[in-house]
């Protein structure tokens, strides 16, 4: 099956079995291994990507659903302006554990902040509650996300002035 879609801002096309998962396509056809193969059935959230600006488990998206969509992986998102504040915060607060779920955590952070630019601590914890992470505690992740909101507010007010 021939499928045309946009991957990390570039128009692309593949010839794929219709049920091949987006996760496998990203990793094997395009060599983008930032999206991790974890449980492969939508539980662990290691395989998150944006499809049409919506955060999804790529292991649950079959190829036939990709036609005409915009897919953004961590590799693509890391080129964006929004990534810079996340990178700064994660390095400052130093919450990188083994790094397996970090790419997905970054995309989930962006998804949260896109919908709620100033989430409360409870809202942050709620949004992360489906994450499968054994390396880090939660306080630091919450601190990092709150720091990102401060950075973004500061940038916004600097732009206005």
């Amino acid at each position: 099956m021939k499928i045309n879609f946009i991957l990390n801002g570039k128009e692309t096309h593949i010839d794929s079995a219709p049920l091949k998962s987006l996760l496998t396509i990203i990793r094997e056809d395009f060599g983008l291994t930032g999206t991790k193969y974890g449980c492969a059935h939508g539980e662990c959230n290691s395989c998150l990507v944006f499809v049409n600006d919506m955060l999804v488990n790529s292991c649950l998206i079959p190829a036939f659903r990709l036609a005409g969509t915009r897919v953004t992986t961590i590799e693509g998102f890391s080129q964006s302006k929004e990534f810079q504040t996340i990178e700064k915060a994660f390095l400052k607060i130093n919450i990188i554990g083994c790094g397996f779920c970090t790419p997905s955590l970054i995309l989930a952070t962006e998804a949260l902040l896109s919908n709620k630019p100033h989430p409360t601590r409870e809202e942050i914890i709620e949004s992360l509650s489906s994450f499968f992470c054994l390396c880090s505690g939660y306080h630091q992740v919450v601190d990092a996300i709150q720091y990102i909101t401060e950075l973004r507010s500061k940038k916004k007010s600097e732009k206005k002035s």
Partner: protein
Amino acid sequence: MALQEEMIQTLKGHSKFASDIKIKNCYYGHIITSPIHKGTFSIKKVPELPHGYYFITSKDIPGINKLSLYLDNMPFLAEKEIHFEGEPLCLICGPLKEELERLAGQIHIEYQEETPCLSINEASEINILQKEYIHKGDVAQTFMKCAKIIENEYKTNFEEYQFIEPQTAIAYWENKKLTVYCTTKNLFYTRNNIAEFLNISKNHANVIVPDFVQDQGEKQILPTLIASYAALLSYVAKKPVTISYNNTVKRYPSIIRHKTALDENHLPIGAKIEFYIDAGAFNIAYPNIFKRALFSLCGAYELDNLEINAYYIRTNKIPFTRFLNTGPLEAFFAIELHTSNIARICELDPYTLKNSLLQRTPKKNNEKINSTESIREILTDVIKRADFLRKYAAYEAFLKRKKQPDEFNLPMRGIGISLCFFGFDFLDELLKTTKYSIKLSLHKNNNLTIYTSAVESDQSLKQLFATIASRLLGLNAAKISFVSQNTQNAPDSGPLTETRVITHIGKLLEQGCYSILAKKKKGIFPITIKKASSISSTQDTKVKIYDSTYCDSLTWCAAVIEIEIEPVTLEIICKNFWLTIEAGTILEPEKIRIQVEKEILSGIRSVSFKQAFKDHKYTPKQNLPLISLNFLEKPYKHGPLGAKGIGELPSLCVAPAYVAAVSQAIGINITKFPLVPENIEEYLAKNED
């Protein structure tokens, strides 16, 4: 690559785990495992294999079919006898994954099943892998003359957590030399076993751990097995081969029976302890679960009259990928909860009882006992900060008085305390007899490279080593780089267990830095220093197995946990968690806080989830306590810059304090975990009856 750069690459998704590594024309390997727990098997029929597909049994192994373990040996591939469900029997490899699975389904294996032993309760004499009898004082006389006896049986649950990262190995041969990528935490152990398995020289095998490896449980045996299979299949197929194998981290149930004799003042004067812990089908080499458990059975307490009967039971269960705190967790759960239960029964507060049991006898010649002073200090500190005595008394009083009608809808409250220690490497025979090393190289531009095979699954050890080196040598920590994940380039620094690596290898690092400083004056670069030692040269190993208080090398933690139980839903909510830790000098307090929090969450998950499999996520809101952490800093002379490793210590403190708090809240002495609302409902219903 410098540390900072590694972290940035991780954030951008560029870090490679084993499952991310792609090699051209790579074949896939598939492991066929036993569906039965115990018995024998014979391979009756193998389908005709297409070109490029290979089938391997134990008969095809060129070297020794035995994975070396401490006091035990396990076959790489079963020969005839099956010891546990999931035991690898044979291998198949080829170019297409789907075809492999189809072919594997066509292999006809006949099984003769035997009755397995699947739990400690089912075990008999022949299942005893190790046993230990320890006797001190006159226990029989003590129990005859005592005023009261309190006994209980404590049980720890089965736990199972999913690895997210699949266990993957990739092997290929080039010019008769083997390269294997895998997720081992002990590079040289894996390399040496592969070499024996394949009957090749160790110098012809290079084991590499990728940039990052997910940190979960013991990761020495299973990665070594998978790496060996990949290597053998690659040898036979003459192609690179990759194998992925999904497994879980496990804790098997244990039973600990405490029987304590009390005097007229309700103080313990003697004890009998029976301890049963499940080894699985084989005794994995490291960590040495049984010895560490033995050492922890009496906790921090001294009793003049003591009898311990401890059994390490072989069952027909999968032996590898165990929690790293297995052994001490079970032992501390029992002793800490038992002393708390004794206090409640005798209407004492647990702090007073535990404090009275700490070592009373000074050393000979009035030698200062640093460990005991530290223990009392951390206990006193945590009690004070948690306002433990007042709350304990208040909750006891509330529990005992007759409730007014409007009080039945109030949450039930409880507060519990525990005291634990960690850092058992001096008990491990292998570490005492083997020299481990580290290498440092300083260049003229002040770039330092640290060579060590103590590979790590996250950045924390690298960052700590960089902190130590930067402080001693006046360098920028972010510019320090590591050569760590390759048996060809890194020296053998031994197994990756955090406390040992921090204390022992960290000390070698410190010594290396001082040597560099001495040589720097000469102005000749690069300066390369290698430091090596075995563990016995830096640790006091002359300790009695049941008496921990002489060990300054241990890291100590006193913890208090306060809980509430919702009156309608019976959900247990952790409100507050206080800890005071003595771990030598604290070099990176903020990073240790992250680690402590992670360990506490791990402990809470263990104690409060009915089935941890698939539930092991960021803890739901109600289980996130406010954590208050304090350090008691006492420089440890054998640690780098006075530091000691903390490891899984905080997780050990959770279960006994948590269960003690719940016991107080509902007024029933609970002796096992997990604790979920259904359990609370059962306990309350029984109490009413």
